[in-house]
Protein backbone atom coordinates (compact mmCIF):
# COMPACT_ATOMS: atom_id res chain seq x y z
CA UNK A 1 0.00 0.00 0.00
CA UNK A 2 1.27 3.44 -0.93
CA UNK A 3 -0.04 6.95 -0.99
CA UNK A 4 -1.71 8.22 -4.17
CA UNK A 5 1.24 10.18 -5.55
CA UNK A 6 3.64 7.29 -4.94
CA UNK A 7 1.27 4.81 -6.60
CA UNK A 8 1.17 6.90 -9.77
CA UNK A 9 4.92 7.49 -9.60
CA UNK A 10 5.58 3.74 -9.38
CA UNK A 11 3.54 3.04 -12.54
CA UNK A 12 5.47 5.82 -14.28
CA UNK A 13 8.85 4.51 -13.07
CA UNK A 14 8.08 0.99 -14.28
CA UNK A 15 7.15 2.39 -17.71
CA UNK A 16 10.52 4.16 -17.86
CA UNK A 17 12.34 1.06 -16.66
CA UNK A 18 10.75 -1.15 -19.35
CA UNK A 19 11.44 1.47 -22.02
CA UNK A 20 15.11 1.49 -20.99
CA UNK A 21 15.22 -2.30 -21.31
CA UNK A 22 15.76 -2.78 -17.59
CA UNK A 23 12.47 -4.45 -16.75
CA UNK A 24 10.16 -7.20 -18.05
CA UNK A 25 6.47 -6.61 -18.81
CA UNK A 26 4.92 -6.09 -15.40
CA UNK A 27 1.64 -6.85 -13.67
CA UNK A 28 1.26 -4.94 -10.44
CA UNK A 29 -1.48 -5.07 -7.80
CA UNK A 30 -1.80 -2.30 -5.27
CA UNK A 31 -3.97 -0.45 -2.78
CA UNK A 32 -4.09 3.13 -1.56
CA UNK A 33 -3.13 4.35 1.90
CA UNK A 34 -4.65 6.72 2.70
CA UNK A 35 -7.76 6.23 0.56
CA UNK A 36 -7.64 8.56 -2.42
CA UNK A 37 -9.46 9.97 -5.38
CA UNK A 38 -7.70 9.75 -8.73
CA UNK A 39 -8.87 11.82 -11.66
CA UNK A 40 -8.33 11.37 -15.38
CA UNK A 41 -5.61 13.47 -16.99
CA UNK A 42 -8.15 15.67 -18.82
CA UNK A 43 -10.35 16.34 -15.82
CA UNK A 44 -10.37 19.45 -13.67
CA UNK A 45 -9.41 18.67 -10.06
CA UNK A 46 -11.72 21.32 -8.59
CA UNK A 47 -14.48 20.31 -11.00
CA UNK A 48 -14.40 16.67 -9.94
CA UNK A 49 -13.17 16.53 -6.37
CA UNK A 50 -14.50 18.09 -3.19
CA UNK A 51 -11.08 19.10 -1.90
CA UNK A 52 -12.35 20.34 1.48
CA UNK A 53 -14.20 17.09 2.14
CA UNK A 54 -11.16 15.06 1.09
CA UNK A 55 -8.88 17.07 3.37
CA UNK A 56 -11.29 16.71 6.29
CA UNK A 57 -11.61 12.96 5.72
CA UNK A 58 -7.86 12.42 5.25
CA UNK A 59 -8.45 11.29 1.68
CA UNK A 60 -5.77 12.32 -0.79
CA UNK A 61 -6.16 13.12 -4.49
CA UNK A 62 -4.00 12.75 -7.55
CA UNK A 63 -4.11 13.29 -11.30
CA UNK A 64 -3.41 10.16 -13.34
CA UNK A 65 -1.42 10.06 -16.57
CA UNK A 66 -4.33 8.20 -18.12
CA UNK A 67 -7.67 9.55 -19.28
CA UNK A 68 -11.02 8.38 -17.97
CA UNK A 69 -13.00 9.52 -14.97
CA UNK A 70 -12.62 10.20 -11.27
CA UNK A 71 -12.27 7.10 -9.10
CA UNK A 72 -12.53 6.79 -5.34
CA UNK A 73 -9.94 4.26 -4.20
CA UNK A 74 -11.13 3.16 -0.78
CA UNK A 75 -8.25 1.58 1.13
CA UNK A 76 -10.29 -1.52 1.93
CA UNK A 77 -12.89 -1.29 -0.80
CA UNK A 78 -11.04 -2.07 -4.01
CA UNK A 79 -7.92 -3.52 -5.60
CA UNK A 80 -6.04 -1.56 -8.24
CA UNK A 81 -3.85 -3.20 -10.86
CA UNK A 82 -1.50 -1.99 -13.53
CA UNK A 83 -0.22 -3.79 -16.60
CA UNK A 84 2.86 -2.28 -18.20
CA UNK A 85 4.75 -3.54 -21.23
CA UNK A 86 6.00 -2.81 -24.70
CA UNK A 87 3.11 -1.66 -26.85
CA UNK A 88 3.91 -4.28 -29.49
CA UNK A 89 2.96 -7.20 -27.23
CA UNK A 90 -0.63 -5.93 -27.05
CA UNK A 91 -3.20 -5.50 -29.82
CA UNK A 92 -2.60 -2.29 -31.77
CA UNK A 93 -6.30 -1.45 -31.65
CA UNK A 94 -6.91 0.31 -28.35
CA UNK A 95 -10.32 -1.21 -27.63
CA UNK A 96 -8.94 -4.67 -28.44
CA UNK A 97 -6.07 -4.12 -26.02
CA UNK A 98 -8.54 -3.07 -23.30
CA UNK A 99 -10.47 -6.24 -24.07
CA UNK A 100 -7.35 -8.40 -23.79
CA UNK A 101 -6.29 -7.07 -20.40
CA UNK A 102 -9.86 -6.92 -19.11
CA UNK A 103 -10.24 -10.62 -20.00
CA UNK A 104 -7.66 -11.34 -17.28
CA UNK A 105 -9.83 -9.54 -14.73
CA UNK A 106 -12.91 -11.38 -15.99
CA UNK A 107 -10.96 -14.63 -15.60
CA UNK A 108 -10.09 -13.70 -12.03
CA UNK A 109 -13.65 -12.80 -11.12
CA UNK A 110 -14.88 -16.07 -12.59
CA UNK A 111 -12.69 -17.88 -10.08
CA UNK A 112 -14.96 -16.39 -7.42
CA UNK A 113 -18.04 -17.48 -9.35
CA UNK A 114 -18.72 -13.98 -10.70
CA UNK A 115 -19.58 -13.92 -14.38
CA UNK A 116 -18.53 -10.61 -15.88
CA UNK A 117 -18.03 -9.20 -19.35
CA UNK A 118 -16.12 -6.45 -21.09
CA UNK A 119 -18.22 -3.35 -21.79
CA UNK A 120 -16.40 -1.05 -24.22
CA UNK A 121 -14.82 1.42 -23.95
CA UNK A 122 -13.17 0.62 -20.65
CA UNK A 123 -15.50 -1.08 -18.20
CA UNK A 124 -16.25 -4.55 -16.95
CA UNK A 125 -19.83 -5.29 -15.94
CA UNK A 126 -21.59 -8.06 -14.13
CA UNK A 127 -25.38 -8.37 -14.43
CA UNK A 128 -25.26 -5.09 -16.34
CA UNK A 129 -23.57 -3.20 -13.48
CA UNK A 130 -20.03 -1.84 -13.51
CA UNK A 131 -17.60 -3.76 -11.32
CA UNK A 132 -14.33 -2.55 -12.81
CA UNK A 133 -13.13 0.61 -14.55
CA UNK A 134 -9.91 0.79 -16.53
CA UNK A 135 -7.72 3.40 -18.21
CA UNK A 136 -4.86 3.13 -20.66
CA UNK A 137 -2.07 5.28 -22.02
CA UNK A 138 0.67 4.57 -24.53
CA UNK A 139 3.86 6.59 -24.37
CA UNK A 140 6.97 6.19 -26.47
CA UNK A 141 6.28 2.55 -27.18
CA UNK A 142 5.13 1.55 -23.68
CA UNK A 143 1.56 0.69 -22.76
CA UNK A 144 0.21 1.29 -19.26
CA UNK A 145 -3.25 0.13 -18.33
CA UNK A 146 -4.44 0.47 -14.79
CA UNK A 147 -7.82 -0.05 -13.28
CA UNK A 148 -9.87 -0.77 -10.23
CA UNK A 149 -11.81 -3.84 -9.22
CA UNK A 150 -14.49 -2.85 -6.74
CA UNK A 151 -14.67 -4.99 -3.61
CA UNK A 152 -17.10 -3.00 -1.48
CA UNK A 153 -18.52 0.42 -2.29
CA UNK A 154 -19.59 3.08 0.20
CA UNK A 155 -21.66 5.24 -2.15
CA UNK A 156 -22.44 7.85 0.50
CA UNK A 157 -18.75 8.43 1.21
CA UNK A 158 -17.86 8.33 -2.46
CA UNK A 159 -20.40 11.02 -3.34
CA UNK A 160 -19.30 13.18 -0.44
CA UNK A 161 -15.78 13.27 -1.89
CA UNK A 162 -16.69 13.79 -5.52
CA UNK A 163 -18.15 17.04 -6.75
CA UNK A 164 -21.67 16.23 -7.68
CA UNK A 165 -24.35 18.81 -7.03
CA UNK A 166 -26.20 18.70 -3.71
CA UNK A 167 -29.40 17.68 -5.46
CA UNK A 168 -27.62 14.65 -6.81
CA UNK A 169 -26.34 13.48 -3.43
CA UNK A 170 -29.79 12.37 -2.52
CA UNK A 171 -31.00 8.93 -1.59
CA UNK A 172 -32.26 8.72 -5.13
CA UNK A 173 -28.80 9.35 -6.54
CA UNK A 174 -27.20 6.80 -4.27
CA UNK A 175 -29.87 4.31 -5.22
CA UNK A 176 -29.33 5.16 -8.85
CA UNK A 177 -25.57 4.60 -8.51
CA UNK A 178 -26.35 1.30 -6.82
CA UNK A 179 -28.31 0.35 -9.90
CA UNK A 180 -25.33 1.08 -12.13
CA UNK A 181 -22.39 -0.02 -9.99
CA UNK A 182 -21.77 -3.23 -8.11
CA UNK A 183 -18.89 -4.81 -6.23
CA UNK A 184 -17.46 -8.23 -5.52
CA UNK A 185 -18.96 -8.29 -2.03
CA UNK A 186 -22.46 -8.20 -3.54
CA UNK A 187 -21.77 -11.42 -5.43
CA UNK A 188 -19.34 -13.35 -3.28
CA UNK A 189 -18.35 -13.93 0.34
CA UNK A 190 -14.69 -13.76 -0.68
CA UNK A 191 -12.39 -11.75 1.54
CA UNK A 192 -10.28 -9.01 -0.02
CA UNK A 193 -7.25 -11.30 0.12
CA UNK A 194 -9.21 -13.97 -1.73
CA UNK A 195 -10.15 -11.46 -4.42
CA UNK A 196 -6.47 -10.62 -4.79
CA UNK A 197 -5.56 -14.32 -5.10
CA UNK A 198 -8.27 -14.86 -7.71
CA UNK A 199 -7.18 -11.82 -9.72
CA UNK A 200 -3.55 -12.84 -9.54
CA UNK A 201 -4.43 -16.31 -10.86
CA UNK A 202 -6.60 -14.78 -13.58
CA UNK A 203 -3.89 -12.39 -14.72
CA UNK A 204 -1.00 -14.87 -14.86
CA UNK A 205 -2.83 -17.83 -16.38
CA UNK A 206 -0.96 -19.04 -19.46
CA UNK A 207 1.98 -16.70 -18.88
CA UNK A 208 5.54 -17.32 -17.75
CA UNK A 209 6.03 -15.14 -14.73
CA UNK A 210 8.05 -14.53 -11.60
CA UNK A 211 7.41 -12.44 -8.50
CA UNK A 212 9.58 -9.39 -8.01
CA UNK A 213 9.80 -6.16 -6.10
CA UNK A 214 10.77 -2.80 -7.51
CA UNK A 215 14.48 -2.48 -8.26
CA UNK A 216 16.52 0.07 -6.33
CA UNK A 217 16.58 2.26 -9.47
CA UNK A 218 12.79 2.04 -9.82
CA UNK A 219 12.29 2.86 -6.13
CA UNK A 220 14.57 5.88 -6.48
CA UNK A 221 12.89 7.08 -9.66
CA UNK A 222 9.44 6.63 -8.14
CA UNK A 223 10.48 8.70 -5.13
CA UNK A 224 11.78 11.39 -7.48
CA UNK A 225 8.65 11.37 -9.68
CA UNK A 226 6.43 11.51 -6.61
CA UNK A 227 8.27 14.59 -5.41
CA UNK A 228 8.68 16.34 -8.78
CA UNK A 229 5.29 15.53 -10.37
CA UNK A 230 2.56 13.58 -8.64
CA UNK A 231 2.57 15.35 -5.29
CA UNK A 232 2.74 18.84 -6.79
CA UNK A 233 -0.02 21.40 -7.04
CA UNK A 234 1.13 22.21 -10.59
CA UNK A 235 0.43 18.66 -11.75
CA UNK A 236 -2.66 17.87 -9.74
CA UNK A 237 -4.40 21.20 -10.36
CA UNK A 238 -3.13 21.75 -13.91
CA UNK A 239 -6.73 21.59 -15.18
Amino acid at each position, binding site marked *: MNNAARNMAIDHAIMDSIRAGNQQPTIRFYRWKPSAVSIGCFQ*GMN*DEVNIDKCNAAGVSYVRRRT*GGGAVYHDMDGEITYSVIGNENIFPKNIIESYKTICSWIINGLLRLGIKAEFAPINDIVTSGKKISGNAQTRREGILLQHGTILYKVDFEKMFSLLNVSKEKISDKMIKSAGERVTSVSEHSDAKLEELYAALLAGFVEGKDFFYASLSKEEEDEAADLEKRIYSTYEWNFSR
Partner: protein
Amino acid sequence: MHGKCKIKVPGGKMVSVKVDYGKKIERVSILGDFFLHPESAINKIEERLKGIDTESGKNAFEMIIANALKEEKASLIGADAGIISSAIEKAINDGMASD
Protein backbone atom coordinates in the same frame (compact mmCIF):
# COMPACT_ATOMS: atom_id res chain seq x y z
CA MET B 1 -16.18 36.88 -21.78
CA HIS B 2 -16.26 33.37 -20.38
CA GLY B 3 -18.47 30.50 -21.37
CA LYS B 4 -18.69 26.83 -20.55
CA CYS B 5 -20.57 23.83 -21.81
CA LYS B 6 -20.81 20.20 -20.79
CA ILE B 7 -21.96 17.49 -23.19
CA LYS B 8 -22.54 13.83 -22.40
CA VAL B 9 -21.54 11.89 -25.47
CA PRO B 10 -24.23 9.29 -26.28
CA GLY B 11 -22.80 5.92 -25.29
CA GLY B 12 -19.53 7.63 -24.52
CA LYS B 13 -17.94 10.06 -22.18
CA MET B 14 -18.37 13.55 -20.77
CA VAL B 15 -16.84 16.50 -22.61
CA SER B 16 -16.63 19.85 -20.84
CA VAL B 17 -15.31 23.01 -22.44
CA LYS B 18 -14.37 26.35 -20.88
CA VAL B 19 -13.71 29.27 -23.21
CA ASP B 20 -12.34 32.76 -22.56
CA TYR B 21 -12.93 35.03 -25.51
CA GLY B 22 -13.54 38.46 -26.95
CA LYS B 23 -13.88 38.76 -30.70
CA LYS B 24 -11.39 35.94 -30.84
CA ILE B 25 -10.88 32.87 -28.67
CA GLU B 26 -8.32 33.69 -26.00
CA ARG B 27 -8.18 30.37 -24.19
CA VAL B 28 -9.93 27.00 -24.43
CA SER B 29 -9.79 24.20 -21.88
CA ILE B 30 -11.12 20.86 -23.03
CA LEU B 31 -11.92 18.64 -20.07
CA GLY B 32 -13.64 15.34 -19.50
CA ASP B 33 -13.35 11.62 -18.96
CA PHE B 34 -12.60 10.78 -22.60
CA PHE B 35 -9.34 9.25 -23.80
CA LEU B 36 -6.86 10.80 -26.20
CA HIS B 37 -3.75 9.01 -27.43
CA PRO B 38 -1.25 10.58 -27.16
CA GLU B 39 -2.56 12.75 -24.33
CA SER B 40 -0.17 15.57 -25.21
CA ALA B 41 -2.26 16.27 -28.34
CA ILE B 42 -4.71 18.14 -26.10
CA ASN B 43 -2.19 20.99 -25.83
CA LYS B 44 -1.91 21.24 -29.61
CA ILE B 45 -5.70 21.34 -30.01
CA GLU B 46 -6.11 24.02 -27.36
CA GLU B 47 -3.24 26.04 -28.81
CA ARG B 48 -4.62 25.87 -32.36
CA LEU B 49 -7.99 27.18 -31.23
CA LYS B 50 -6.43 30.33 -29.73
CA GLY B 51 -6.93 33.43 -31.85
CA ILE B 52 -9.77 31.97 -33.91
CA ASP B 53 -12.71 34.28 -34.55
CA THR B 54 -15.44 33.34 -32.09
CA GLU B 55 -18.04 33.58 -34.84
CA SER B 56 -16.25 31.02 -37.00
CA GLY B 57 -18.76 28.40 -35.93
CA LYS B 58 -18.78 24.70 -35.23
CA ASN B 59 -17.54 23.53 -38.64
CA ALA B 60 -14.44 25.73 -38.48
CA PHE B 61 -13.68 24.60 -34.92
CA GLU B 62 -14.15 20.98 -35.95
CA MET B 63 -11.74 21.34 -38.87
CA ILE B 64 -9.07 22.87 -36.62
CA ILE B 65 -9.45 20.06 -34.09
CA ALA B 66 -9.45 17.35 -36.79
CA ASN B 67 -6.31 18.82 -38.37
CA ALA B 68 -4.52 18.99 -35.01
CA LEU B 69 -5.45 15.36 -34.32
CA LYS B 70 -4.14 14.35 -37.74
CA GLU B 71 -0.86 16.22 -37.26
CA GLU B 72 -0.35 14.60 -33.87
CA LYS B 73 -1.44 11.19 -35.19
CA ALA B 74 -3.82 11.24 -32.26
CA SER B 75 -6.97 9.23 -31.58
CA LEU B 76 -9.90 10.41 -29.53
CA ILE B 77 -11.81 7.65 -27.79
CA GLY B 78 -15.20 8.31 -26.22
CA ALA B 79 -15.49 11.72 -27.88
CA ASP B 80 -14.80 13.23 -31.29
CA ALA B 81 -13.92 16.52 -32.96
CA GLY B 82 -17.58 17.18 -33.74
CA ILE B 83 -18.67 16.89 -30.10
CA ILE B 84 -15.84 19.12 -28.86
CA SER B 85 -16.55 21.75 -31.51
CA SER B 86 -20.26 21.72 -30.62
CA ALA B 87 -19.32 22.24 -26.99
CA ILE B 88 -17.06 25.18 -27.93
CA GLU B 89 -19.82 26.81 -29.96
CA LYS B 90 -22.35 26.30 -27.16
CA ALA B 91 -19.88 27.61 -24.56
CA ILE B 92 -19.43 30.79 -26.60
CA ASN B 93 -23.19 31.20 -26.97
CA ASP B 94 -23.60 30.51 -23.25
CA GLY B 95 -21.09 33.25 -22.44
CA MET B 96 -22.85 35.73 -24.70
CA ALA B 97 -26.25 34.88 -23.23
CA SER B 98 -25.09 35.37 -19.66
CA ASP B 99 -23.27 38.69 -20.31
